[in-house]
């Protein structure tokens, strides 16, 4: 199955972004156009400084582009106000960071529950959802552990559960295995793959690791702010 047969969920057109350093404009992304289909697991690769994180942050609505449009599920997010964008992120995006970014004062369970505070789910429903996703990432026996009591791999699985718990349109991961040993990294990748294949999640993952990229259904290369020719990966 190729991505073109499924509906497009992310549609990026002529996206550009540059940073200003002093009075000098440094282009980071130049005229990027890209589509991502529903349930696609896309790996975004490229040398350091090529603009991978910048692109990911734009897609996740964490940052704003200079020009171009990003439509996610039909919504042009560059049109949204800050408040609307925050609400949009809460329902449509699950973000997974390289360094997990769990809140140290909350337990694994509470960390996962955190995004649901913004929904109008009842307390009971919130707890049920949190339980479900923690079971999904195989951590139902670590609910009351604080992040410091968990291994890196476990923390990243909690972070994935947190990203997943609101059932977002899009999962975005910036080097999710970058800080993990091989075995933990493998666990995380298997999990992401399963989420995409079995649960139909759309995932965009930035990675340096070709092994990680091989898990994806599509690999895109970014070099100096420009997308290289598409490479379709073979689904194993």
């Amino acid at each position, binding site marked *: 199955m190729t991505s073109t047969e499924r509906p497009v969920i992310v549609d990026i057109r002529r996206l550009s972004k540059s940073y200003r350093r002093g009075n000098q404009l440094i282009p980071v992304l130049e005229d990027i156009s890209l589509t991502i289909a529903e349930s696609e697991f896309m790996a975004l690769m490229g040398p350091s400084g090529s603009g991978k994180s910048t692109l990911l942050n734009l897609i996740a609505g964490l940052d704003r582009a200079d020009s171009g449009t990003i439509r996610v599920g039909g919504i042009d997010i560059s049109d949204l106000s800050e408040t609307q964008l925050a609400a949009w*992120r809460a329902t449509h995006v699950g973000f997974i960071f390289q360094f997990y*970014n769990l809140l140290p004062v909350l337990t694994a369970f509470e960390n996962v529950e955190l995004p649901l505070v913004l929904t109008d789910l009842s307390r009971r429903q919130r707890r049920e959802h949190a339980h479900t996703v923690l079971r999904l990432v195989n951590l139902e026996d670590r609910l009351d552990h604080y992040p410091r009591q968990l291994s890196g791999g476990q923390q990243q699985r909690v972070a994935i559960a947190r990203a997943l718990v609101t059932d977002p349109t899009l999962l975005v991961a910036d080097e999710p295995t970058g800080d993990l040993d091989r075995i933990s990294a493998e666990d995380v990748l298997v999990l992401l793959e399963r989420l995409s294949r079995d649960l139909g999640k759309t995932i965009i993952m930035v990675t340096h690791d070709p092994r990680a990229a091989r898990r994806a259904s599509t690999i895109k290369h970014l070099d100096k702010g420009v997308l290289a020719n598409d490479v379709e990966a073979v689904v194993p």
Partner: protein
Amino acid sequence: MMWKLLFRNAFRHKLRALLTVFGVAVAVLAFGLLRTVVDAWYAGVSAAAANRLIIRNAISLTFFLPIAYMEKIRAVDGVKAISHMTWFGGVYIDRKNFFANFAVEGKPFLDLYPEFILPEDQKDAFGKDRRGCVVGRGLARRFGWKVGDSITLQGTIFRGDWPMTVRGIYSGRERTVDENQLFFHWDYLNERLKAAAQRRANQAGIFIIEIADPHAAAAVSGSIDAVFKNSLAETLTETERAFQMGFVSMSEAILMAIRLVSFLIIGIIMAVTANTMIMSVRERMHEFAVFKTLGYGAGRLGSLILGESAVICAAGGALGIAATFPALRILARYVSNVFPVLDITSTTLCYDVLTVAAVALTAAVFPIRRVVTVPIVEALGRAG
């Protein structure tokens, strides 16, 4: 969930949080104490009766009035009763034992001051003994005096030793009544003056009158002062309240200074708490960026930070207010002869609560602004 977060975050750095709580507590305590002392200063004023007027020498309080004025004043329309009072300035054993003592008229004086509660038999005993005196309960406790004890005052304004016998111990009808005064017979003073210093005899420090209608105070004052206009000793008549106020206003500058200091303390604690909040939020900017990534908006971020600041300030405020009561009791033990009433007023308690709220708010404002406006990508840092 929000509550859990807010409490856990507030006491994340235990030592820092406790120090800040302690700082707020000390500031609230100091603020409460200073304000209560200022209030105590004015307590004499609020205890003053509205139906009593004080007549003094128009030149100054240190000049006396001829006792002969009494009958002329009594004749003025609206005057119901009259008596007089002379500041004696006597010292008991040592100057450090300062307390107020006056030569008064005995029964007419006590009739004019119903707020001094005294058993009838003691009143009679005082009336019968020309060398008797009546002392306040606080004073009796302080020096261990009992009815029947002989004491001696050394005169400062009126030279010599003045032996007298305690014939009565009064208590105040209200808590605001000063229970640290001594009253003895003016006759005793006057008879010795007649013998030794004729020029100073037959005079009184002030006259006190009771008027039938408190609303007529201004009119009665006017007519009394008119009687003695252009005489050798012109009078100045004012309400007891205004008279007490005159005493207080002498120390107005000090009171102003104390007030100023009490507000400076609040200013300092505001700065300190704001600094703590700014530092603590800056350290966690990364976490707030994560909140923002999850879609937490300005309102929730603001409540998290304000809540954290409020938890710390409320803890400090509660501690400070709780400490104010025992602190005042201890302070009262040392200054009861100066300040008969040292109670914290509800106004001061209100101010306490308001200042704590203001501190919590100002401490939260800067970090909230920073967290709300910082771009997520910048706050996440390159490591995000």
